[in-house]
């Protein structure tokens, strides 16, 4: 057996001491090593996905005995590959972005660089592990590993009231995770298994293992945990400050890669193990998602701090993800997971852009004080434009197709069930997309257009360590926006297996 997928975990793990040691010498340049090392998981995962043949096309797994709990397994399949692609791409690219950004944030202390990049590698490991996990306990473990380093990253290098903010972040997500753990433990206890496949097998063989009522309870608990992560309305309070006050590279990973994992996990665990119970909640979830979409956009409209604007925009975008899942058909679910990819590229671009602006304009992130940067930072401005258009769901960006299919899912659900409620929700949801266009274009206008002011008159283009990630992500956005099949085809076949066509 080849160690492909476990390699995707071991490499970032081994990277921790390597980066920590190297940082003494290399300081901020450790980011280049981090970039190279974190590309390896991406490559091994993509390679692993090519291993499956025939009916297992695209699926590949490695199981390691973890008695008495079960198997400590890793699996890449049609559902997880797109997610892993974004995580791998972003964690490596953001390593580059960290080079100039953390230079400015940390200064000359070599030890601090070691800590930063070690935590960063651990954070990447947590995300990859969460997505690859095949076992519920293993999943929980990685889910928590994801939290711990991100907490420290915010607490150490955040802005403003970073202690309070990081603590709020920690407690909210941790409490969410604990509630999730309750759901996992009850499931494991009643089905006598923790491996997801075995749990599903046992439940299919003996549906009576868990009563319908209890299933609803379990789904509620698990969804609570995941929805805190994706910041659904009411569970979102930790999010705006955490995203806004984290250092920009960390904000990028938080918003673009990590948050959406809550949506992925909802599909992977809740919808796969308890599809009927999820369906019971789905009408309610659709409404909740709608509120989140509109609320997030409305909040974004009135922000002056760009990072806070993007944070609220993330809340809104996560509403779209839940909306797609709540449609509970192949369009909705695949569109929703595709939305993870689009959000990954769009938020990736935009948070890096904000970082670039802050870096070049002396830490400025207030919309009212910026302006006229388009001619000063043409590459950044172009990337920001593409990112905004992705957010606004304009064709030729992947944001259009993902939103298109998830809304198509909503409409198919509405017409299939002849539900007026669902129809109204879908219609209101799509009307709310006009708000997204509003705030993203408004931000573009205020940052990049108009005449340069005294603060922005002598600004220069960001260094290549920032423009390269921006260009890469922009290309991914446009390629997938025009030819979505490599992602959408996989997601559709995965979604059909879970919710039928």
């Amino acid at each position, binding site marked *: 057996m080849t160690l492909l997928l476990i390699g995707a975990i071991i490499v970032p793990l081994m990277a921790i001491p390597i980066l920590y040691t190297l940082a003494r010498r290399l300081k901020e340049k450790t980011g280049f090593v981090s970039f190279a090392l974190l590309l390896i998981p991406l490559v091994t995962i993509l390679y692993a996905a090519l291993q499956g043949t025939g009916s297992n096309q695209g699926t590949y797994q490695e199981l*390691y005995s973890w008695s008495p709990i079960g198997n400590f397994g890793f699996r890449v399949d049609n559902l997880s590959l797109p997610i892993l692609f974004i995580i791998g791409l972003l964690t490596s690219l953001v390593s580059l972005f960290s080079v100039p950004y953390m230079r400015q944030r940390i200064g000359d202390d070599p030890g601090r660089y070691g*800590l930063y990049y070690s935590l960063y590698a651990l954070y990447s490991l947590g995300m990859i592990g969460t997505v690859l996990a095949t076992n519920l306990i293993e999943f929980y473990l990685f889910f928590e590993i994801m939290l711990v*380093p991100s907490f420290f990253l915010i607490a150490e290098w955040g802005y403003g009231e970073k202690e309070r903010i990081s603590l709020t972040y920690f*407690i909210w997500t941790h409490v969410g995770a604990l509630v999730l753990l309750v759901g996992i433990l009850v499931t494991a206890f009643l089905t006598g298994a923790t491996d997801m496949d075995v749990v599903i097998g046992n439940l299919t063989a003996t549906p009576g293992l868990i009563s319908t009522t209890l299933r609803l309870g379990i789904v509620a608990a698990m969804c609570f945990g995941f929805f805190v992560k994706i910041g659904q309305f009411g569970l979102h309070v*930790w999010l705006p400050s955490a995203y806004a006050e984290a250092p920009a590279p960390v904000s990028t990973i938080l918003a673009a890669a990590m948050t959406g994992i809550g949506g992925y996990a909802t599909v992977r665990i809740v919808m796969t193990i308890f599809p009927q119970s999820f369906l019971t909640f789905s009408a309610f979830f659709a409404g909740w998602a709608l509120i989140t979409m509109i609320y997030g956009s409305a909040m974004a409209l009135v922000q002056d701090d760009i990072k806070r604007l993007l944070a609220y925009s993330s809340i809104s975008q996560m509403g779209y993800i839940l909306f797609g899942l709540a449609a509970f058909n192949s369009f909705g679910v695949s569109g929703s997971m595709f939305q993870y990819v689009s959000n990954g590229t769009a938020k990736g671009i935009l948070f890096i852009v904000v970082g670039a602006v802050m870096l070049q304009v002396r830490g400025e992130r207030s919309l009212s004080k910026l302006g006229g940067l388009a001619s000063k930072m043409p590459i950044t401005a172009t990337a920001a434009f593409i990112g905004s258009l992705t957010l606004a769901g304009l064709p030729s960006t992947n944001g259009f197709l993902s939103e298109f299919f998830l809304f198509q899912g909503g409409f198919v659900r509405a*017409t299939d069930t002849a539900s007026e409620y669902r129809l109204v929700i*879908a219609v209101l949801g799509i009307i709310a997309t006009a708000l997204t266009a509003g705030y993203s274009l408004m931000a573009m206008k205020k940052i990049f257009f108009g*005449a340069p002011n005294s603060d922005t008159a002598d600004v220069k283009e960001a260094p290549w360590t920032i423009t390269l990630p921006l260009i890469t992500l922009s290309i991914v956005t446009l390629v997938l926006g025009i030819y979505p099949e490599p992602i*959408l085809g996989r997601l559709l076949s995965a979604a059909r297996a879970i919710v039928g066509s």
Partner: protein
Amino acid sequence: MATSLLAWLIWITPLVGALLTPLIAKIHSRVRDIAAVGFTLVAAVLATMTALTVSAGDYTVAWIPSLTITAGVLVDPLSLFMANIVAWISLVIMIYSVGYMKGEFGMTRYWFFMNLFIGNMLLLVLADNLLMMFFGWEGVGLCSYALIGHFYRDEAQYWVGSPGDKALGVSEEYSPTKSGMKAFIMTRIGDVALLISIFLIYAFARTFNYNQLVIELGGAGSWAANLARLGLLLPTALLFFGGPIGKSAQFPLQEWLPDAMTGPASVSALIHAATMVKAGVFLTGRMGPVFFIALSQFNQVPQFFGVIAWIGAFTALLAASQAAVAREIKKVLAYSTVSQIGYMMLALGVAGLSANFLAGYTAGLFHLLSHAVFKASLFLAAGWVLHVTESRFMDEMGGLARAMRLTSASMLLAGLSLMGIPPFSGFWTKDAILSVSFLGGQYILYGLALATAFITGFYTVRMLGITLAGKPSKHAEDLTESGKHPHEAGFMMLMPYLLLAVGSLGLGLAYPFYSGPLTTYIASTFSSALYKFPAATISTSGLTDLLLLSVSTLVAVTGGIVGYLLYFKKTYEFKTDMNPIQRFLYKRWYLDAIYYKVFVSGILAASRGLFTYVEQGIWNRLNNAFAQDIMDYSKASDQLDTQVVDRAANEVASYGSRLSNFLRKLQSGVTEQYVIAFAIGIILLLAYMLFVVGAT
């Protein structure tokens, strides 16, 4: 594929050209300019070659195989007719741009978006399915946003509106970037409606392909029948029309177009003549027949087509009335476009209401052609006038005819076509619309259209009178004194608008010869047996025809005479104290201000309220109180992380002191040690599994 490749390349060429522009710009700016025009030229030639050599058909390739969605180019008379107008008019505008935009700021970006604009328009015209069409549709919107806001530094000279213009306290002055955003978002509202309609259609049809949609109308379980079962067929059709309403600036979404004049004149010409606003008319032309067949199975045709016709007629009148009082020359032309598109919509609507579908249908498309020609000419000429007079206000022009004979002649010719004076092409096509309205029994619509014709005559003459006739204004005299004499444009700029103006006359003179064959040609788009249109020969006597012709001409001429008396004889001065009617019209019926108050100020105020009272008032307060408790509890210092962990360790300690001591040892240091211990733990765990337990 072989010959159909030509059809594909029509829209691919300008798009690829756009992408290449930044690279070519590295060679030399002159090469870049020529190449940019070259790409459009190739597209135009390809469009004509396709019309001549490629047989009608749907040429598809795989696109999203997992949903069996194909991409394709639909070659049929309708798409070819449109593609040729778009490509050739665009070419003329591109040639004009070379001179007009010389030395302007951001030229690489300009050429990029111009070609992208043209390519997207051709894509939306040639696409064989709704999804692909929507790519072009939104692409057009994006390019208009970028080009309207081309002068993104918002210098005062590029604004529209007179200083101090206000309605209901809302400023009516627009900067380029603001207008760009307004155009994008306002058309986007229409697009949302269009999208909802596409979703509903696809939910049952499971195809986006136009031909497939028509074929699937046959059975009892067709998408139309399914939608009708849920009572959604008519709403679907109407929502679909929302897209064209936005793009083609029809009531109630007409307000973006007048302010879109912040772009360069060449951009305005492109938006008004060849791309953007024509997209809505085209799409209505593309899907109108499909909805006609679908709705006719459920007797809902009049509702749908009635809405189109009424919106068209009302918009035509509304915008014409605003053109009659406008101060800026480009705004007159912009209102005029809205009004003329209203005519086209009226024709497409009346088609469904009358006994001969194709009569109204072709009338609408013919007017699109003649409008494309004369409006492009007017905008390009106006662009030169703006340049020479260094002002956008007509009252700062005046007396230009003496120094600029050819430009004035060109504007006069195109203006006569706009007014609908025989034998210009605008006369024939406008008259066709009026006739089908009258003969279709839609007398009120006919009346509205006739009133519009009167106002059109008036505002056209008014515009020509103020700018070309009379004495030069104070501003113009000042310019002359400072050595800037009004003069003709250079050959490469003069020819485009002059040729178009003459072309408008030529198209008019030849109209009796080509109108019949062209009608047959366009009608052959619907030769499939599935299209069951009412095609009664409308019996009219030559006398009725003549009467209708005379009435519409007379009305237009009367309007013109009123304009002549008021504006050729007297010097026009812009006065801020207008009479109530003028003020009402000048302030755009207050519609713009009301929209702004409701949809911009209203939404922002609501969002702010939510932010203050819900987000900060409830959520953050709860959260902060919660966080504060914990912080107080842990007596947070700057070493907060250690503290919290220590606290946690203490908590655990109360359950077992040994464990506590262990944890303390592990976690007493700084974060670094904690992390490293954590990492080592995982390494050990994995190593154990790998090497001790072994892989299974």
